[in-house]
């Protein structure tokens, strides 16, 4: 390790934080504008041109509000929860290769690292619900735990399938394997797993569930639990959860892009680069928004049924199928 490495890492971490912050702010804008377009209304228009300054206005509003800890709540955990939910998303992005060289830490266990830190997310939201001393928040916390645990299993099974297909945990290597025309992307690698597109859909669904996005937003479930685990949070405490939600979406979409859609590889085999990565990622992010503004919320037991009775069996069978296919073909 050279002497520059710590500085390089620091620079990247600052870069990632800026990237996440900017993205979260402007994804809120994109979400609001997108929702508006789906619903045939203008969305924010008044603050800045096309409402472009709206996220900044929102941020200032949130910052100016009092951080209120409800009486009887566990103050330490209540304050720690927003941080705990934010940090794993940031760390996860540290191993994401935006392009061949644009990666904070090109580690050999990148895949594992994202999952290791991603699991903290569940605990953090649960803590926020539990420490709020609010009945809605408690119900929400209980829901989140069972939901996230249920969806982590099929997600991991899918990732193990990909691991077998690629044979590496290094994210950059996974992308490099997908070089060439777009049929070289993992999503079209029907030779290792004939059910690959289905595997991708399972991954995408699990990603929606893990990030507590509609139609799986049991945690917030506005019409049932007011604001779920975040009911008692005010000001920037709530704001951090909000940013973390988008950070997690970005991480999830980036991860899906790397695993299935060839990361920074161009679909034509030439001019690969960060542009392609961002394009693919934002298309996925748009799909997430699109899904949210189309469907009603699932019921809780249907959500668990979907995971335990459908996604886990299917992902398990794709795993076995891949194993068999790879064994036979080799």
């Amino acid at each position, binding site marked *: 390790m050279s002497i520059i490495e710590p500085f390089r890492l620091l620079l990247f971490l600052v870069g990632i934080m800026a990237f996440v912050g900017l993205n979260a702010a402007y994804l809120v804008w994109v979400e609001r504008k997108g929702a508006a377009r789906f619903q045939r209304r203008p969305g924010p228009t008044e603050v800045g041109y096309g409402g472009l300054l709206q996220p900044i206005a929102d941020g200032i509003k949130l910052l100016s509000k009092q951080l209120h800890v409800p009486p009887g709540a566990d103050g330490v955990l209540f304050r720690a929860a927003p941080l705990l939910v934010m940090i794993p998303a940031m760390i996860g992005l540290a191993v994401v290769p935006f392009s061949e060289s644009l990666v904070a830490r090109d580690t050999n266990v990148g895949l594992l690292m994202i999952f290791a830190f991603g699991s903290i997310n569940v605990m953090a939201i649960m803590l926020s619900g539990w420490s709020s001393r609010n009945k809605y928040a408690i119900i929400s916390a209980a829901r989140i735990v069972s939901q996230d645990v249920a969806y982590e299993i099929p997600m991991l099974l899918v990732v193990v399938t990909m691991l077998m297909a690629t044979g590496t945990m290094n994210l950059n290597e996974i992308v490099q394997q997908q070089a060439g025309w777009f049929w070289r992307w993992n999503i079209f690698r029907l030779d290792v797993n004939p059910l690959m597109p289905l595997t991708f859909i399972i991954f995408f669904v699990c990603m929606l569930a893990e990030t507590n996005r509609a139609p799986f937003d049991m945690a917030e479930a506005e019409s049932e639990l007011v604001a779920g685990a975040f009911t008692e949070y005010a000001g920037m405490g709530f704001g951090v959860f909000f940013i973390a939600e988008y950070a997690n979406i970005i991480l999830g979409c980036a991860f899906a892009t790397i695993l299935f859609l060839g990361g920074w590889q161009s679909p034509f085999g030439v001019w690969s680069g960060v542009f392609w990565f961002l394009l693919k990622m934002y298309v996925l992010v748009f799909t997430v928004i*699109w899904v949210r503004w189309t469907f009603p919320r699932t019921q809780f037991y249907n959500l668990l049924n979907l995971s335990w009775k*459908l996604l886990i069996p299917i992902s398990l069978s794709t795993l076995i199928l891949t194993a068999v296919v790879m064994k036979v073909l080799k």
Partner: protein
Amino acid sequence: MKALLKEIGSGFHSLVTGMRITLGQFFKPQVTVHYPHETLKMPVRFRGHIELVRDPQTGKAICFACKACEKACPSDCIIVEGVKREGERRKSVTEFKLDFTKCSLCGSCVEACKSEAIRFSKDYNLASVSKEEFIMDLFKRLESEQPKPPQAQPEQSKEAA
């Protein structure tokens, strides 16, 4: 098993159909009117708060304080006073108080008025920080306004009908 597969198939199809529909709406033009940059034309029969009508000949209020509107009002929010001046055939109105905080915009008063002396205004932008502003003296309001150009009159009498 077959039923389950069928359900998965039709379920997935329904989700894709839903997404197709919302995407179709995405590219359609907006339906919102950008208030306050754009406003809509109020319909002719719009029931705003009431106002007195000016007689185009004399330039004074038509109202002669018969109090039919006062009696018709279900919320008791109208108080009309009038005097009979020397040399005039009928009474003339001196005070026409409308307590808009109580008014339910039902239009009974306009209907009760036989001489079309009151009509609905098209003023929908009513907001204030004090209650007193909504206890309006419509007679003073009429007096303080400039008489409108006469061509506006025939249309208004049609509205009141």
